[in-house]
Structures are given as structure tokens and as C-alpha cells.
């Protein structure tokens, strides 16, 4: 098992503890919302601001040249993490949400025609629902929804039926943030290809492209976009030990090249006149304006940290904790686990009989345990399981069995209070 709490300053301080009391350690169980940051990431950004801050891709002075080099170096690291064919397939965005909006606005507006179909799953995050709804309003395309069974597993036979020659886009998450289900995205991409022979060499030829929302997967398991054959892969820096304000869109070169710009501004143009403006090649075509320079540098440090831990070791650690936590929680009779797919990532979503998730959240916080309560930006998932909200404990590589023991003990105490 990993033992890395020491790398994370926030996990080493005590909270509360005024009036002579010693304070409490933090049991942080909300990594699916956002992860804490290791010292190396915090220090890299701090040092960069103190010593090397400058703008990128514009300055002819060394401060800017060096900033540009660090900035572009992260792109290479991301390409390596994903096993992308080239760093030109890596677009910087402000987060998963913007990555998906970029595809919806740029690819969607260009290629979707009235009656075209977008396939989503029932268990998507709002970030992978609402952009498509906005784009259907503009294009006349329609959304079809892949159903899930009672464990939270996508029903592939229904997916197969929904895949038709009208399917233009399939957009599903790799891991559901509300349930923890790991979706069989490799198989789903293969099915999309078979149903609908898409030719990436000629993206104007109609066919379905597949976008994978990797917000919950990329720091928890090895992801190989070429092995998956994903057309787009989207994720956020802040959920992978990096800073807020930075995200990634991976896109296959041929597809990115077929896409018009999304936002307009500096650095994405080749030549601007009021009569006519021409645009740069990808990825720069999609990166308008001064980018999140320091956040990109911080993300680079986060990728180094991830590489140092090793995704296999992270996955093994988190899986062991998931088994342990599932067992602990199953012993609480009042508790109902929501999301019991055979293939699951380290997310434990649940309800307690007679206690609303918000009350669970507030009362656990008294014990220094941070979980999330609510709809997890996945209201259709809540609707599917007939609950308004769940409590959710989600794990990262810095968690240990003590965190889960504290959670179980806290839940038992709450049940007492509410009895």
C-alpha cells in the first residue's frame, strides 16, 4: 500500500482546536470533487511566480522563452501520460467542462445536422449533458440516452440498439463520479466503429466520433487513448493533484484539424484583418488569449508526481481501499450503497435510512471527515435511482484504512443521534 499523506500539507495540519483543544486531523474523502495537492506542485508554482514568471509564446526575452519552454513541456508530459501520438493532440482548456463545451461548440456546430443523434449515458455528469443540450438547440440534433441497470452498469445491448447510422457523437464518462462505475469504453468505442464506419482520415465523412469524459479516471488508472481508440478525451487538472483553472482536451489530429475555432483572440490566429482572419493549426487554434501559464506549469509537476507514484500502484492501493470500505459500509444495516457495479472505481455513494445526506455531511464534518452530499452534478443519475441526493466518500492515493474506519464510526454515531 502507498503511504503518502506526508506529501500533502493539508493532510498534516490540525483543524479547529481553539480554546486549548488540540484540533483534529482531516479525513479527506472528497477526491472525486477535487484532490488535495502535494508539496511539489505547490512549491513549483510558488517558485515559478517568484523566479521565472513571464508570458508565453510572445516574449523575445529569456523569462518568456523559459516560461514558454516549461509551458510546452507539460504538453509533452500529458501526451506521454495518455500515449497520444503527438503533443499537438493536447489542447489546454480551463477544465473538463470547457473541454467538452469546446467539442460541442466547435465539432458539434460544424458537423451536426437536424435529426443527427448524440448518445449519452444515464449516469453522466452535467458537464457531459448540458453542453450537448445547448448544441442540440442550435443544430436540431437529438440526444439519446443509454440506460443503466440497478447496479449502475450501462446496458450494452441497449447501447448496441441505439447505435445507428444517425449516431454522430457518443459521449460517455470513463468513470461515473456519482456511482463509481467504470464504463467499458474500449468496447463501446469498438462498437461505435463497427456500427458506423468512421474514417478519421476524412472526418467530414459522416460517422460517430467518441468523446470520453475522463475527469474521474485519469489519475486513478492507466489510460491509453490509442489503445482505447478514443477520438476525444477530456479531464481536469484539479482532480489529478494539479491546480485549479487548467484542463485538457485530447483530440485526434485529423479531427482537431477539421474543426473551426471555438473562442477567438490572441495566439490562435495566423493573420488578422478586418476583412479576413486565418487561424493557426491545432492545438493553438483552440487556445485563445493568455493561457493559464502557471497552472500549466503546476500541472507538469502534478504529472511528475503521478509518474513517481505510478498509476498501477495507485490503482492497486485504491482498489484495496475500495474493497475494505465496501465491506465496512455493508455492515451498517441502515446504509444503502448506490452504485454496485462489478467494475468500480474508489467511490462509495450511499444513503442512510432516515437521515438526509446533507445532515450526514454536516455531522461527519464535526469528526473531521470531509465527504460530499448532494446530487454530485448528476441529477439524472439520482432520478434513476430514486433518490434526491446521496452521501459520497471518494478516495485518493493518500487515503488509508483509518480514513474509512473513521467514516464508518461517524456514520454509526449519526444513526444513534437520529434514532
Amino acid at each position, binding site marked *: 500500500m502507498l503511504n503518502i499523506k506526508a506529501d500533502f500539507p493539508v493532510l498534516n495540519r490540525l483543524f479547529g482546536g481553539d480554546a486549548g483543544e488540540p484540533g483534529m486531523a482531516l479525513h479527506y474523502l472528497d477526491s472525486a470533487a477535487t484532490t488535495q495537492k502535494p508539496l511539489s506542485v505547490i512549491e513549483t508554482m510558488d517558485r515559478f511566480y517568484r523566479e521565472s514568471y513571464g508570458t508565453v509564446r510572445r516574449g523575445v526575452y529569456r523569462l518568456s522563452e523559459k516560461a514558454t519552454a516549461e509551458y510546452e513541456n507539460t504538453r509533452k508530459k500529458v501526451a506521454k501520460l495518455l500515449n497520444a501520438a503527438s503533443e499537438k493532440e493536447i489542447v489546454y482548456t480551463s477544465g473538463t467542462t470547457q473541454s467538452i463545451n469546446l467539442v460541442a461548440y466547435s465539432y458539434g456546430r460544424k458537423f451536426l445536422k437536424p435529426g443527427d443523434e448524440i448518445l449519452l449515458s444515464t449516469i453522466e455528469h452535467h458537464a457531459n449533458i448540458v453542453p450537448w443540450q445547448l448544441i442540440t438547440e442550435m443544430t436540431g440534433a437529438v440526444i439519446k440516452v443509454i440506460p443503466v441497470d440497478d447496479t449502475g452498469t450501462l446496458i450494452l445491448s441497449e447501447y448496441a440498439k441505439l447505435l445507428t447510422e444517425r449516431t454522430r457523437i457518443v459521449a460517455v464518462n470513463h468513470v461515473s463520479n456519482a456511482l463509481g462505475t467504470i464504463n467499458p469504453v474500449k468496447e463501446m468505442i469498438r462498437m461505435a466503429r463497427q456500427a458506423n464506419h468512421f474514417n478519421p482520415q476524412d472526418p467530414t465523412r459522416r460517422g460517430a466520433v467518441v468523446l470520453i469524459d475522463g475527469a474521474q479516471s485519469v489519475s486513478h488508472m492507466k489510460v491509453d487513448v490509442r489503445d482505447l481508440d478514443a477520438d476525444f478525451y477530456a479531464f481536469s487538472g484539479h482532480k489529478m493533484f494539479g491546480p485549479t483553472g487548467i484542463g485538457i482536451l485530447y483530440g485526434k489530429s485529423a479531427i482537431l484539424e477539421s474543426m473551426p475555432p471555438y473562442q477567438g483572440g490572441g495566439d490562435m490566429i495566423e493573420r488578422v484583418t478586418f476583412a479576413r482572419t486565418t487561424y493557426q493549426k491545432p492545438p493553438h487554434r483552440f487556445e485563445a488569449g493568455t493561457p493559464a501559464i502557471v497552472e500549466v506549469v503546476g500541472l507538469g509537476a502534478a504529472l511528475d508526481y503521478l509518474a513517481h507514484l505510478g498509476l498501477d500502484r495507485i490503482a492497486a492501493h485504491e482498489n484495496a481501499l475500495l474493497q475494505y470500505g465496501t465491506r465496512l459500509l455493508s455492515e451498517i444495516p441502515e446504509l444503502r450503497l448506490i452504485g454496485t457495479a462489478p467494475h468500480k472505481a474508489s467511490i462509495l455513494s450511499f444513503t442512510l435510512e*432516515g*437521515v*438526509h*445526506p*446533507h*445532515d450526514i455531511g*454536516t*455531522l461527519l*464534518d*464535526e469528526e473531521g471527515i470531509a465527504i460530499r*452530499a*448532494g*446530487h454530485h452534478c448528476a*441529477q439524472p443519475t*439520482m432520478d434513476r435511482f430514486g433518490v*434526491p*441526493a446521496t452521501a459520497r466518500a471518494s478516495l485518493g492515493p493518500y487515503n488509508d484504512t483509518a480514513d474509512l474506519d473513521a467514516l464508518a464510526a461517524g456514520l454509526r454515531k449519526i444513526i444513534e*443521534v*437520529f434514532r
Partner: protein
Amino acid sequence: MSRSHELYQQVILDHNKNPRNYRVIPDATYSCEGHNPLCGDHITLFLNVGADGIISDVSFQGNGCAISKASASMMTTFLKGKSSDEAKSLFKEFHDMVIGDLDPDVQETHLGKLTLFKGVREYSSRIKCASLAWHALMGALEKQVSATTEA
């Protein structure tokens, strides 16, 4: 004493478990669905106001946490027999109390037992739970069909 004991007092836990006036008024003068967009909780408030402006009946139904349910339950018992103008000024007092602008320990209020909810000001994420029913009440009095806690 830990923060939460101040909030989750026996009275609140009791109203959560046995909410008063938890029913539909089929022929209500007004009703309004209150909705907290951050958590998805919602309750429907039903209100009968006589020609004299007096609240003759008030009830609620819906889904929410202990704080929002107890708040709705206690609010409905408290309001019966009060005028709609009184209800509006109670809303203001209650709202000021939960956001921390009015301290019932040092300032005079007309909130009676409802001052129990003063503890919520310590929990910024729960303030909207305590005020959800009140927002629905204001919506009903203003003849809206829905209200959110976003105001």
C-alpha cells in the same frame, strides 16, 4: 460543545422525524414550490389566507434534510393565525438571523422558538436549508408558483 450539537438539538430532530403540517391543502389559496438548486432539495408550501389577511392554514410537503424539514415544520406551526404582513416581517427576521445579521441573544426578535435555528449561521452551506420553506412562503405570498433560495 461541538458545533453540531448546537444545531442538531432534540427539538429539531423531533420535527424532522415527526414533521407537523406535513400534508397537502387541496384547495389552498396559494402554493409554491421552493427549490434549492445547489442540493436539489425542494418542498411545496400550501397556504390559506382569509379575506382578513390572516393565515388560516399552512402546510408543506417535500424532500429535504433535517434542517429544512424541521424549519418548515416549525414555521408552519408558528405562522397559523398570523397575518400575511406579520409573516413577511418574520421572514425578514428569520433570514437576518440565519445569515448572522441578527443575533437573538442580544437583539429583540419575534421569532420565539424559531431562534433555535440561529446555530445555522455557523454553517454557510446549510443556511439555505433553514430558509428554504421561508422562501417558498414568500413565493406563495407573492403568488409565484416557484421560488429558489438563490435570491
